[in-house]
């Protein structure tokens, strides 16, 4: 999919230049460089701006969704340096130099979707679609965490950590429980994740 072409104007499309040039505004802004879906982006950012709002408002990457803005629903999940995060909880000014991958960056760039995206299609693992990008990014992060040997709440305490953790349905459910789906697509999401780890 790659990142979408976009001029990285300071403050982005939603910000006004006059406001940015006032003294008080300038004093609360910093230049930040993020690598987003493989492309370097330098932005002058309001310190209050969360990564989620940078993606959605400045970079027009609206695949990351705002469901709660409080880290409670997971719809905003993206990968930062390969790890899943709630992008609504990260102040973008703190992410200088970091690598961000959003749902728009998961395909191969030639129009082919990621196997997990295809599995979501195959399994009808969504309805309204609003939690879907977060579910997909979260599942990719969770699969990596298991591969790195991170245990979850349901992992057998006797299992040595640091070695790859096999993911059964209970493990998948537990590890994806930070991603809410009000349409109730959960069983189909687990099916889709199983499809790509088998």
């Amino acid at each position, binding site marked *: 999919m790659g990142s979408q072409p976009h001029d990285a104007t300071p403050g982005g499309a939603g910000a006004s230049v006059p406001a940015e040039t006032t003294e008080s505004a300038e004093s609360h802004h910093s230049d930040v460089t993020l690598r987003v879906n493989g492309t370097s982006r330098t932005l002058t950012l309001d310190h209050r701006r969360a990564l989620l709002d940078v993606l959605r408002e400045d970079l027009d990457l*609206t695949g990351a969704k705002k469901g709660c803005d409080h880290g409670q629903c997971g719809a905003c999940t993206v990968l930062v340096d390969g790890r899943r995060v709630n992008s609504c909880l990260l102040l973008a000014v703190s992410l200088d130099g970091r690598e961000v991958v959003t749902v728009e960056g998961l395909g191969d760039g030639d129009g082919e979707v990621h196997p997990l995206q295809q599995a979501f299609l195959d399994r009808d693992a969504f309805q309204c679609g609003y939690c879907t990008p977060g579910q997909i990014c979260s599942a990719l992060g969770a699969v990596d965490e298991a591969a790195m040997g991170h245990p979850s709440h349901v992992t057998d305490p006797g299992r040595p950590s640091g070695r790859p953790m096999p993911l059964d349905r209970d493990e998948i459910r537990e590890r994806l429980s930070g991603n809410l789906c009000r*349409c109730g697509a959960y069983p189909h999401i687990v099916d889709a994740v199983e499809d790509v780890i088998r």
Partner: protein
Amino acid sequence: MTDSPADPMAEPHTATGAPAERREGRQKVTGAARYAAEHPLPGRAHGWPLQAAVARGRVRRVDASGALEMPGVLTVLTHENAPRLNEPDDPMLAVLQDARVPHRGWQVALVVAETLEQARAGAAAVRVDYETEAHDVTLTEDHPAAYVPDEANGGQPGTRERGNPEADFDSAPVKVDAVYRVPPLHNHPMEPHASTARFDGDRLIVHTSSQGGTTVRQTLAALFGLPEERITVSAEHVGGGFGSKGTPRPDVVLAVMAARETGRPVTVALPRAQLATVVGHRAPTLQRLRLGAGRDGRLTSLIHEVTTHTSHVKEFVEQAAVPSRVMYASPHSRTLHRVTPLDVPSPSWMRAPGEAPGMYALESAMDELADALGMDPVELRIVNDTDHEPDSGDPFSSRHLVECLREGARRFDWAGRATRARAATGNVLVGSGVAAATYPVMVSPSTASAHALPDGTFVVRVNAADIGTGARTVLAQVAADALGVPLADVRTEVGNSDLPAAPLAGGSSGTASWGWAVHEACTELKDRLAAHAGPLPADGLDAHADTSGTADADSPYARHSFGAHFAEVAVDTVTGEVRVRRLLSVFAAGRILNARTARSQFIGGMTMGLGMALTESSTMDAAFGDFAERDLASYHVPVHADVPAIEAHWIEEDDPHLNPMGSKGIGEIGIVGTAAAIGNAVHHATGIRFRELPLTPDKVLTALGERHPVRPTMTA
């Protein structure tokens, strides 16, 4: 599993019934699908609503001076300077029109700024003084302000009675008399309500998250005094609604006001924490059920009395007694609603209003009756089956409740439930429960158009809303069959008010309403094509349909979907935690038009029912007059880990009395009765009857402690 030889349609079905993939699926999994707040427009500003901090009173003064001096703040709209609206049909939309505060959380100002952060900071800097009045937000059985409304939601009579219910109940050999409580519940679709509005010359263009764009356009035209043809409302993708986006909510009114005042495109995306108070909620219900039966289990009297609240803004009455007018034969019955206006936010529709809380009570009471009779709860429901709707006396167009119960019992291994319960070990008690489900068949008139293009493909247009149901897909299936062409040759356009007008996605009626019009338009187009000689003209051939007068014609039949839920639970006697192990449901809902998307909807409804049973609860704080649970950390919707083996099955029905597709609605029945099945399973596991939702560990542990005291001092 069909038992009727007649197919409702003359032509063979090929596309309908097939598990066709969602047409917008690729956009959704790649993040390309745009929702209402995701339309970047040059100069777009953001609005942040400010909510009343008192439960009742008046706004005495709004001091916006501090906010207006802040960087990026463009304007602060209050009741003193906001555009005047024509009086709305829905008083929930009369925002910023006067100083009155009818409930805590009522929106009293809108800060509009260049960025989200500036709007949020501006809202925090607005000072509002209130004239506070004493408030009352507490629902009780005997509130002096309670009254019996003429009508409950959906135009249902407030009360219905036949026979001599009290006298029969008093003399019945077997009785159940119990009160059930369902707390306030919140829809909480994953996409919070959001709207983006802009004026382009004399045109108003709105992107909104709505279950019905035609209604949004009509409402905005009326409120702002604009001709409808100058308004376009787009709702291309909608991140769920579950009733709370059935009609316009204040976000769209505020966005249009702000766009008009600033001359900018403005997005108003409601913060999650505002949803509890401004988009409607499922009102709490206190429900007294009295069942009188003979020793053979046959009901002779059924009395279902519902007490609920509404706001002082408008009357909305959760019609929870209505399913008791449908489900079981009984010569004597009273079904009644009482409503008390309180200083609470306005309740509104939440998935299966009426049926969801009402069937929790009725189906729990049926389980208690089975217990009192020493009868299998599946058999009790079968004994009380009826081929005529008890309240109206009309014959059911199709019912198949017994088939759902038997098929479900077989698939679930209902017969083995005692064995499974005995096999439980350790601190865990295991039980199984059953409950029935019902939801009415609703349908509204719609328009649609069908176009044959010279390249041999077809376009169907209707302002349907795809809120996750797969409307685009299923309407293409309906069109393909009506035209007799391959599914791939049909494109559908939905979600824009420039398309033919259509009713909302609500009452599980969307597919029936839109599909009927699509079917008519395509049937006419097929006739026109048959009569046409030679190649098509460059702009193709069109046909239009309007089902007014047909779709809404009276039917001599009572038309409802039915179903049966089977739940197996594990109750931890140390923690009081209830876990659903298995949930299996069988539905009879007419012809299933898309097996794939239908299964997802059924499972989704069942999952929300699981939440209603075990985790979802809101509390009206008596002192503050506010819902205590306003975010997703405190209002617990089910998560992955809560949803184990869950299966939806169905019985194919051939019912010629519905619509040209032979379909019933499927969006809501999944939530109806689920909580009762789970509660009945908890009773089977523990021997304890819980009558108040949700079944959280505090309630369960307390009851277990009272029944099996750990320490002597704990006995009451």
